[in-house]
């Protein structure tokens, strides 16, 4: 091996060790392997250089057997270099995007079949819940998208002996049956028989078919063409309590309270420990 060979050997060791170190970044075993590979490849390059220049102990192109060895060395060193470059590219790409293995590990940490303990947090002492004006739950809607009374609702018959009318806003009907709007043009209220409300007062929300609603208002219609078709008349109208309560005579809301047994018990001395004051006990 001549001087050029030695220089190339050193350069080879430095270059390949550096590449291997960058590729293995902070991994001691890989760095060691990189250094060893670098030493080996540096040696092979020096051999190749000696063969090419004709200097040194093994001018491969002069002596056929040694030349063959040098060709093999060239092939091996090329493959080794390609291997290191492939590793380097892999490392660079793993930095830009999480590798599948790492991804799976992260997923494992995120999702765990093990039972999770309930989170018990002492309530913050002075924080009172923010109150919002709550919208009531959506009214029941049938599979066809048409408003319908709750399951098990039995259509009511008018109570006998009850007379009088309740005027509900026309918007109550159009809220339930938007298609009814064209039949209610110019009407602000629609009159409905009180007898239809009475049996449903305890339930707060009153359900009527539009046919029941329209019954009292049909006489005002000029022609048969003004009347909605049967399907529309069978649709349900949901009347919220605020639309009718003020118009129902108060006597219908009177109840004879039957106090429960525990209310009839005589007071005891021990209960005086709870003062009936607005402040904290």
């Amino acid at each position: 091996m001549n001087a050029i060979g030695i220089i190339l050997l050193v350069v080879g060791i430095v270059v390949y060790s550096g590449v291997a170190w960058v590729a293995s970044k902070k991994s001691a075993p890989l760095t060691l392997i990189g250094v060893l590979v670098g030493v080996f490849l540096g040696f092979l390059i020096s051999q190749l250089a000696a063969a090419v220049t004709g200097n040194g102990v093994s001018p491969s192109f002069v002596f056929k057997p040694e030349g063959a060895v040098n060709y093999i060395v060239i092939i091996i060193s090329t493959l080794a270099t390609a291997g290191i470059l492939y590793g380097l590219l892999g490392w660079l790409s793993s930095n830009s995007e999480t590798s599948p293995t790492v991804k799976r590990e992260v997923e494992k940490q995120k999702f765990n079949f093990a039972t999770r303990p309930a989170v018990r947090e002492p309530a913050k002492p002075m924080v009172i819940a923010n109150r919002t004006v709550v919208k009531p739950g959506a009214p029941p809607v049938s599979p066809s998208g048409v408003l319908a009374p709750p399951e098990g609702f039995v259509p009511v018959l008018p109570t006998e002996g009850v007379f009088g009318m309740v005027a509900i806003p026309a918007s109550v009907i159009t809220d339930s049956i938007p298609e009814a709007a064209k039949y209610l043009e110019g009407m602000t209220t629609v009159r409905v028989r009180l007898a239809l409300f009475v049996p449903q007062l305890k339930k707060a929300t009153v359900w009527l078919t539009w046919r029941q609603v329209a019954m009292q208002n049909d006489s005002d219609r000029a022609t048969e063409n003004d009347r909605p078709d049967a399907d529309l008349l069978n649709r349900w109208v949901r009347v919220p309590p605020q639309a009718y309560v003020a118009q129902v005579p108060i006597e219908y809301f009177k109840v004879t309270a039957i106090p429960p047994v525990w209310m009839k018990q005589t007071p005891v001395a021990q209960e005086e420990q709870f003062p009936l004051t607005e402040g904290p006990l």
Partner: protein
Amino acid sequence: MASINYATKEINCKLVYYGPGMCGKTTNLQVIHSRLDANKRADMVSLATPGERTLYFDFLPISMAEINGFVVKFGLYTVPGQVMYNATRKLVLRGADGVVFVADSQWRLMQENVDSLENLQANLAEYNVNLNELPYIMQYNKRDLPEIAPTWYMDYLLNGRGVPTYEACATEGKGVFTTLSVLCRFVIRDLVHRFESGSF
């Protein structure tokens, strides 16, 4: 049913705040927790969803009374009001000694109040308990909001037994302690009578 611990000389009672979703049950407990002397209550435990809705229950233990040398401790519970959590409501209701039915006074929630009261009765019936036998009172909450129903109408809908009713604005703390105090009185009264009659 109250439980008695003779070793520690304690009587433990369970009071449940029941009502439709977002009617102010948890707020009642938060007010009680924040205003009650620290030596009369422990920390409040809440199992809530991220949206501040009660998921399982809230629990606030307080001790404020004494009967014949026994300290009476009240465990205050709330139930999740949403319709879908009925199994949880039923579970929390088990063994209750008293109930506060918190009704939302807004017109638009009258139907929910009625449904919730029916649900309370149905759930109690599964434990063979009737509201005629269990001390309970009504709290008409959110009285400060616009568009609220008059109390006579709420009485008509919800209070066929004529139990005590209290108007409240839980966010401001109004009516919260009166409601609690009255229920505690009824529970203690019921307890003492059951002791005396030997039915405890």
